[in-house]
């Protein structure tokens, strides 16, 4: 039981986080809240990838002459880290664009509440 928790707790927390973000995007009516949900979803996915790079008793991905390069088990897996740098950038830029859209919506309608927007767009 303890092993199960130790091995898998991160996945369960992260999937829970993903579902929380999904709930924010689907149920919340304020567009700003939808964006927060979106960013939570993205963070949970990023953390999931980082978890996939983790190795027990391994050190960070900077070359250390004292350890050497022969045994890759002594360093963390650098590939997911690299990919997630890109993913974070993408997340930030998406946030920027969505703020631009929100401001454009507010300019046109003066509200960010989804039911009211649906009313006014009719």
């Amino acid at each position: 039981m303890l092993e199960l928790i130790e091995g898998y707790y991160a996945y369960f927390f992260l999937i829970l986080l993903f579902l929380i973000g999904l709930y924010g995007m689907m149920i919340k009516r304020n567009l700003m809240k939808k964006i927060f949900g979106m960013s939570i979803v993205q963070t949970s996915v990023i953390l999931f990838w980082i978890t996939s790079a983790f190795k027990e008793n391994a050190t960070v991905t900077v070359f250390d002459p004292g350890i050497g390069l022969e045994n890759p088990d002594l360093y963390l897996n650098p590939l997911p880290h690299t990919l997630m740098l890109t993913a974070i950038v993408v997340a930030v830029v998406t946030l920027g664009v969505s703020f631009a859209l929100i401001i454009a919506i507010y300019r046109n309608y003066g509200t960010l509440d989804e039911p009211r927007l649906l009313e006014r767009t009719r």
Partner: protein
Amino acid sequence: MKTPSGSPIIQVAARGLVPVIQIIGLYVFFHGHYSPGGGFQGGVLLAASILLARLSLGTEVSQLLFPARKTIIFSALGALIFAGTGLAALLAGGHFLNYEFLPLPGLEPAELRNWGILIIESGVTLTVMTSLIAIYDEIIGC
């Protein structure tokens, strides 16, 4: 904030902080080969310093620090530095973005890669910094 902040505390703090953040940004960018950091983080820090200046000094004054109209041009130029490095390697006979073939004289392959990484990271820094400033400027609407 289109107008300068009225509080003297903010003014003084921003004046002190902006150059420090810029230096840290440059350090992060150049030291990316040895410690965590690199083009993107350096770019964000440099952008943050200018955003701080815009927040505290007001849009009008901080235009002198970095004019809003030129952001997109520099953004395109930064990406062009990156892509142009790749193209140079392609034209010199290698694969796209293969830094071993960069036309820089008198360097070992490993050193060439080292320099190639530095060149493209500078492109990334320029693009990230100017793009973030551009997004800020458009959101604030100047």
